[in-house]
C-alpha cells in the first residue's frame, strides 16, 4: 500500500513539473505575441497619428506581458538617456532570439525606415513565435511521455 502511494506521488510530481514547465513556455509565447502586436501598434501610431516614438512607446506600457519593457525604455529616456540607448539597456535581459530581433530596431527618425523596421520586427517575432510553438508542442509530447514512462517504471519497480 505504502509503495503504491509512493509511486503515485512520484507520478503526480512528474506531472506537476511538466505542467510548471509548460506554463513557463506558454508565458514565453504570450510575451513574444504581445511584443509583436506592440510593434505593429507602434507602426500604426506613427503612420496614422504621427506620434513621436516616445509617445508611441508610452502607449504600449499598459500591455499585460511586454508593458514592462516599454516602461523601462520610457523611464530611461525621461531620465536623460538617449532613446536607442534606453532601448538597448531594456532589451538586455531578454531571450537571445527576441533580443536579436529587437536589436535591429535602430530608432532613427526616418519614417519609412522606421515603419519598415517595425513591421519586419513584428513579422519576425510572429515567425519566431510560430516556430517556438511547434518546438514546444513536440517537446511537450516527449516530456509528457517521458514523465509518464518514468513514473510507471518507478511504480513497476516499487510494487
Amino acid at each position, binding site marked *: 500500500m505504502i509503495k503504491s502511494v509512493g509511486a503515485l506521488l512520484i507520478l503526480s510530481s512528474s506531472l506537476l513539473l511538466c505542467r510548471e514547465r509548460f506554463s513557463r513556455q506558454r508565458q514565453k509565447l504570450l510575451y513574444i505575441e504581445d511584443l509583436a502586436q506592440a510593434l505593429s501598434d507602434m507602426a500604426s501610431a506613427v503612420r496614422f497619428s504621427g506620434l513621436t*516614438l*516616445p509617445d508611441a512607446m508610452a502607449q504600449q506600457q499598459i500591455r499585460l506581458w511586454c508593458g514592462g519593457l516599454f516602461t523601462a525604455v520610457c523611464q530611461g529616456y525621461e531620465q536623460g538617456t538617449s532613446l536607442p540607448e534606453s532601448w538597448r539597456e531594456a532589451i538586455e535581459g531578454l531571450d537571445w532570439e527576441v533580443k536579436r530581433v529587437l536589436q535591429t530596431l535602430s530608432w532613427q*527618425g526616418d519614417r519609412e525606415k522606421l515603419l519598415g523596421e517595425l513591421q519586419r520586427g513584428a513579422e519576425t517575432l510572429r515567425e519566431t513565435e510560430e516556430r517556438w510553438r511547434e518546438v514546444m508542442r513536440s517537446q511537450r509530447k516527449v516530456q509528457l511521455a517521458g514523465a509518464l514512462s518514468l513514473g510507471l517504471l518507478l511504480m513497476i519497480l516499487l510494487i
Partner: protein
Amino acid sequence: MEQHSAVARFRQAAELLEGKWQRELRRLSEEQMARCEEIRLRAGRQMTVLLPEGEMAPDADSPVVTHQDLERLCDMLTAYSRYASADAMGRGYLQTKGGFRVGLCGTAVLREGSVANLRDISSASLRIGREVRGVAAPVLREMMDGDLLGGTLLLSGPGGGKTTLLRDMIRCLSDGLEGQKPMRVALADERGEIAAMYQGLPQLDVGAHTDVLDGCPKAMAIPMLLRSMNPQVLAMDEITETEDIRAIVSAANCGVTMLATIHAADVAELQRKPLFRRLLQAKVFTKAVVIQRREGRRHYLVEDLA
C-alpha cells in the same frame, strides 16, 4: 529678480543640449547668461553664444562642434522622431518644449518645388525667447482711447523686441488692463514664436482669453480665426507677403482690431516699401509703435499713422 529669471531661462534652454555643451555653457558668468540671446552650433566651429555686443565662445578651449553632434541634437529635439517634425524642419526650425525655437541649416530636401525637409544639418541656432512682463502696459495706456484700441503696427529692426512687446500686449489685452475688461484675442502664430505652443499648451503667457492657431500661414489663419473664434483683437507676427496684407484688409472690414509686427526701423521706412505702402493706404492700422534701442535700453514711441 529680472536677471534671476533670465538666467533660469538660459539654463532651461541649455538643458536642450547634450551634457558636454551644457558644461561649456556653465563657464559663462550669470550676467552673460542673462544677456544671452542665442546659442549657436556650427559644424567644424566652436559653439558660440550671441550677446548684444556680438558672438563669443564660452571658453577658448571649447570643443569643436561636429556634424554628428548636430545630428544628435536634431534627434534629441525631435524625440528621435524627425518624421513628426518634417514640416517644421522644412521651414528651417524646430519648436521645443519651453517655447524655445531652434533654427537649422543644412541641405534642403526638395519635393515638388518646396523644401520638404533638411538633411546633413550644418548649423543650429537656439534662440532664447524671453517674456518681459509689464513692458506693454504703459504703451497700451498711451495708445488706447478709453476702452478703444485701434489697429497697431509694431516696428523695429531685427532683434528689436517686436515679438516680446506683441506677446505682452496680447497678454495685457487678454487678461484685461487695470480697470478694463478682458478682450477675446485670436493669435495667428505662424512661426510659433509668440505663444510657443507645445502639445497644445502655450509655453509663454499670452493671457487667459487668447486662442492660438499656430503653424498656419497668416493668409489662411486670419479667416479661420475670424470664422471660428469671433475675436475682438487679432494678433500676428511679421507681415511679409501680399497674401497676408490681403487677408488683413478683409478682416479689418469685420470690425476686429489688428495687432501686427513688421521689420522696419520707423514709419518712414515703412512708407518707402511698396508692399507696406499699400497696407498704410488701406488704413487698417491707425497707430505704430516704433521700438528704438538707445544706451542699451528700449524706447517705445507711439506714432499716428492716419
